[in-house]
């Protein structure tokens, strides 16, 4: 289908982009790879008056270290994320989840920041960012502010980004200690969105699970933490029974929807099974 007519701006700096966004008014929309925006525009679910294309804003690309944080530029493509050595070292969970996003073509155009700012509840990266306690750096006319992941995802396709703000980078804390990570995705065909997925990061200490962070994909209008499971795992023996017992709480506090892939009760069941599998894999024990 053909999108409705729109103005197109392609700035080369963040400042230019912010001006273009301000000039574009309330119907302006940021294009950060276009793998979600273009389809919804073609279906005329979205009809922005102005599209601000960040593709040429080179300062938003790339991954760097900043003290005890990993800083991922918002316009870093999925394929760059997948092959980045710093991410592989400090946050392999991000690479593992990104590798499951859509297909190769989409991963070459789609971006890390674009996927997070779109905040699709079925998208894979929001739950990962939430599990890793990432921080979102937002630039606006009045300067920059940092929003923790727990506050960034507000509702269905809605984030803490104001209309005149741009997500510029995501800061992921480097995890200290013996961490294992795993992304367990459940979908029906290879390129499809997650029906449910679980992002798990587990720190082991002396045969115990010292700490677990678990993000849930598509178990509500926003990504969620499996808080009850995390609490049950803290200090637990790193064994199959303890993990299974803790995973039984994974669906607590979730609000999944019904659709043709899964009714809510089945999603809750999947959350429990997949959490058990994700934590088991992250903890590095035999399931």
């Amino acid at each position, binding site marked *: *289908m*053909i999108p*409705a*007519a729109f103005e197109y701006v392609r700035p080369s700096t963040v400042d230019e982009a912010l001006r273009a966004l301000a000039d574009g008014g309330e119907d302006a929309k940021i294009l950060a790879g276009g793998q*979600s925006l273009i*389809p*919804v525009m073609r*279906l*005329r*679910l*979205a009809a922005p008056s102005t599209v601000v294309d960040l593709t040429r804003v080179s300062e938003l690309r790339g991954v760097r270290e900043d003290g005890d944080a990993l800083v991922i530029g918002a316009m870093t493509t999925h394929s760059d994320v997948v092959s980045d050595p710093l991410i592989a070292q400090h946050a392999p969970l991000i690479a593992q989840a990104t590798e499951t996003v859509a297909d190769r073509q989409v991963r070459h155009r789609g971006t890390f920041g674009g996927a997070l700012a779109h905040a*699709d*509840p*079925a*998208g894979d990266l929001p739950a990962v960012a939430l599990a890793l306690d990432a921080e979102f750096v937002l630039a606006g006319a009045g300067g920059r502010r940092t929003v923790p992941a727990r506050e960034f995802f507000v509702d*269905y*396709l809605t984030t803490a980004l104001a209309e005149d703000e741009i997500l510029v980078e995501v800061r992921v804390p480097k995890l200290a200690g013996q961490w294992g990570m795993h992304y367990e995705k*459940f979908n*029906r*065909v*290879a*390129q*499809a*969105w997650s*029906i449910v997925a679980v992002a798990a990061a587990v720190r082991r200490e002396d045969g115990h699970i010292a700490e677990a962070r678990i993000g849930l994909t598509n178990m509500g*209008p926003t990504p969620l933490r499996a808080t009850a499971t995390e609490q049950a795992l803290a200090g637990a023996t790193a064994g199959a029974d303890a993990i299974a017992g803790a995973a039984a709480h994974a669906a607590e506090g979730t*609000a999944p*929807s*019904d*659709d*043709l*892939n*899964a*009714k809510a009760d*089945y999603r809750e*069941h*999947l959350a429990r*099974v*997949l959490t058990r599998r994700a934590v088991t894999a992250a903890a590095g024990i035999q399931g």
Partner: protein
Amino acid sequence: MTAVEDRPATAGPAKEVGQARRRKEDARLITGKTTWTDNLVLPGMLHLAVVRSPFAHAKILAVDVEAARSAPNVVAVLTGQDFKEEQGSIPCAWPVTPDMVNPGHPSVAVEEVNHVGEAVAVIVARSKAAAQDAVELVDVDYHPLPVVVDMERATGANPDLCHDHLDTNESFRWIFDAGEAGTGQNTDEAFAAADVVVRRRFVQQRLIPAFMEPRATVVQPQGDGYTMWSSTQVPHILRIMLAMITGVPEHKLRVIAPDVGGGFGGKLQVTPEEVLTLLVARKLGKPVKWTETRSESLMSAHHGRDQIQHIEIAADREGNVKGLKVHLLADMGAYLRLVSPGVPILGAFMFPGIYKFPAYRFDCQGVFTNKTPTDAYRGAGRPEATFAIERIMDELAVELDMDPLELRRKNWIGAQEFPFTTVAGLEYDSGDYDEATRQALELLGYDELRAEQQRRRETNDPVQLGIGFSTFTEMCGLAPSRVLGSHPYGAGGWEHASIRMLPTGKVEVVTGSTPHGQGHETAWSQLVADELGVPFEDVEVLHGDTAISARGLDTYGSRSLVVGGAAVVNAAQKVVAKARTVAAHLLEASEEDLQFEGGTFSVRGTPGTGVSIQELALATFAAHNFPEGVEPSLDADATFDPVNFSFPHGTHVCAMEVDTETGRVSIRKYACVDDVGKIVNPLIVEGQVHGGLAQGIAQALYEEAVYDADGNLTTGTFVDYLVPSAADLPHFDTANTVHEAPGNPIGAKGVGEAGCIASTPAVVNAALDAVRHLGVSDILMPLTPERVWRAIHQGGDGGDRATAGTNAYGGAQTETTTGVSTPESSLGGDR
């Protein structure tokens, strides 16, 4: 498999038939640098966009087109009122009963809409974008009417009506009774006398053909005639039908199917959009193009399958089958299209499968619902029949506590019994079901997998293993014209070919069987290269243009090689006969003394003399030295009308893993041995089998067109209508046995539909075999993980899916895919 590109440097050229030639048409098809209809640009060409109904059933009270008409670059906005006198009805060429109810199918709705996506107005603009922008400016005032989506309710007591002007939702009732037809015993008596009767209700879900190239049509008025380019499987049928519908005389209408990117039956149609494009071009006198969006394609191009099947099988305790009863509800959708009613009837003869049933009764009701019309989709009737028989054989085996293969062996037709006339009155031509099965089991590694299945059961492994069979046959090579006439289909089933010998010795083959991706150009070149003894590269195959290929009945029903290829071979043999006369004259010998080998005529016993058929082409062109009274032409044509169908068969075996914790099923191994008769090109055959398997597996596991209670298609994008890719499918172990078809000069049986027909029940049987010990006896298709999980843990068949589309990326629904919002079509739930 290695493609053979080089001719071995031996004395005589190797036979082309049997070589795994790479397809000569692929480079242009794959790169897209070819005549796809949407690539066509004509000077002054206007563009259409179709305004479609967001209601499944409503009266049209008013259509206000003023705002759209005054939009930038819009040339005209036309509605049902503008075309009601000239649009006629989309034709139904297969009135299966004399009293069949046909509500009439306007190309653009006039007073009533009967499914979501039905055309209500057409925008004509100077660009596609301008036309699309104006769609939402058309203001249609609808009065909603009750919506019929469920066939069982539609045929129950006091149903709502799909069509306001009809007093029934039943289009037809069609019965075949072997007892009455004299091809079998009385079915009721057979059932009454049987030890065991098993009854099941199976559901063939609605599918969408989902061809790769969306439909497109261009019409150019020229003088007092029209040329139409259309992405169609059936340019010849389309021309005749358009002439009948619109009154444009047949000889003033040229229809061209240029390169066409897939169809799977979905382009075996005379579409409303083709009619509208022609009517708009006629009204405005300008070239006009219509190209659909994927959303339009999914909701308005015809769908396939959609049957509720009540199957009853009778047997004795020893497992000898005694009778089969079939009662079908077949969903026609809102209207009858070209062969909508014929699809279940085509299946009627295949329910007995490869088994020797003494009694058989088939009873089918065609039902209207407020959904997109159904029509041919790869296999058309035969996959439905094959599924039913192969599933019920497994159920009978369970009831009798017999091995499912043992039960099949006991009842199938023996290799020595061909030709065999079945209880449905078909004469099966040739085959060896036992041998195909033996080879398939070996390919699969059957014994090891059975042992593993046992281990997994004993250890209560969360991942269970099952093995499923489908020992199938199908009727192909559509079709003997006389048989079609008796049913009564509106056309014959012959095919035409002509061969032109060009002066330089090159050869043009004109075929009436229009390809849309099958590889006709390569296969026909191989046939002709062998018949004429000319190089493969010297043969060009022309098709798809009614001005070039004057006669033809196009491509569907695995008919091209079996019927169209046969015509090509017969035409080539006529060329050789004509060339022989000229050769005899030039070599000053009698025709009887000539031998024809490797493309050269020579006098027997006189080495060194000889003239090639390519040299004879030049001699004929010059015609300076020609036999007296012989016309100077080597060209010939042939029309082949088969006397019988051909009957490919095979054994498909699927090994399936079922994760009992999540319900996910994944194919561990798939092996099949198909007998498609003589193989002209093994690479093409293997490709057809692979593609067919993908589509058959897709029905079992992935695809379903889902409608909600208001008649909205909620699988309106490929986010929700799940077409699997190579990443989702296993490696296929394929092989062939060869029993040539006696009914055509090639000996081929047809391969286009085999994989699609055979695979679906093998996959479902495999999944059930994995979990039957857990109390599961059926799971509805597609076998979504949720359904499998529910069947295992909650009993039943997995139940109905929620109808809402996924919320991913905004959840495209009717309001977006039709471009218009209604309260009924808006997003529900938490979105």
